[in-house]
């Protein structure tokens, strides 16, 4: 999630926060986060609790394993969803500039 790292400081300046939810185990997450120098909180969800709550579980047909579909949700300060982005292709996601552009809209309108 290099893109999350790259926009983190700007989002914080705008008074916001970024979290990344992955199915990784906490112990793996700790070492990877240190190695990659992650700025954002990376949340471990190996039991797919939050992933299922958001309906983001995805069964990979080739591997037959549960995975999570790449997505991002832009949440207002009151906890409601303002916008979301869900790609149909792993390789295509929003760029850092596009993320900031969308975030600025909710940063301005958030109560």
């Amino acid at each position, binding site marked *: *999630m*290099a893109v*999350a790292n790259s926009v983190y400081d700007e989002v914080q300046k705008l*008074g*916001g*926060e*970024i*979290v*990344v*939810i*992955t*199915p990784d185990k*906490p112990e793996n*997450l*700790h070492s*990877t*986060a*240190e190695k*990659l120098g992650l700025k954002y*909180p*990376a*949340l*471990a*969800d190996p039991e797919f*609790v*939050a*992933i299922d*709550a*958001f*309906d*983001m579980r*995805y069964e*990979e*047909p*080739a591997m037959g394993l549960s*995975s*999570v*579909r*790449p*997505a*991002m*949700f*832009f*949440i*207002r*300060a*009151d*906890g*409601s*969803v303002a916008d*979301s982005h*869900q*790609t*149909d*292709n*792993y*390789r295509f996601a929003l760029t850092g500039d596009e*993320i900031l552009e969308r*975030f600025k809209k909710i940063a301005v309108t*958030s109560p």
Partner: protein
Amino acid sequence: MGMAAIVALLGCVLVAVASALFFPNAPELPVLSEGDWPRLIVMFLGAGWSLLGTVQYLRYGKGFMAKSAMILMLLFSLGGTGVMSYFVLDYTYDLPTPVEMPADKPIPAFELADQNGELVSDVSLRGKPHIIFFARGVF
């Protein structure tokens, strides 16, 4: 026969370079990085050259080791092109239909530990706008 080997080798290099450009953090190159098809076309061209050069070498060239090396290069070119084409044109499009999240309603409740063991929840994030990413990993 040197020319046949050079053509096959060049084809192999084209396949390797075009494949590498599909990976994350690959350098942005003019034309080649504008969509999938320029890179795929270069891969197909490379595989074609590799096939042509190898066939010519096998017909007229000499030496068991050299011919084996040519066949290995051809397998790399054709295999790489096949795998990357499948990955690019089919596999990565296998994601299900986007999930509708009701706008203006609170997000589902959750509480998870971050990389430092600190708990983060939907409630603790409330009070400031935020972005929640879902990803297969933090790589």
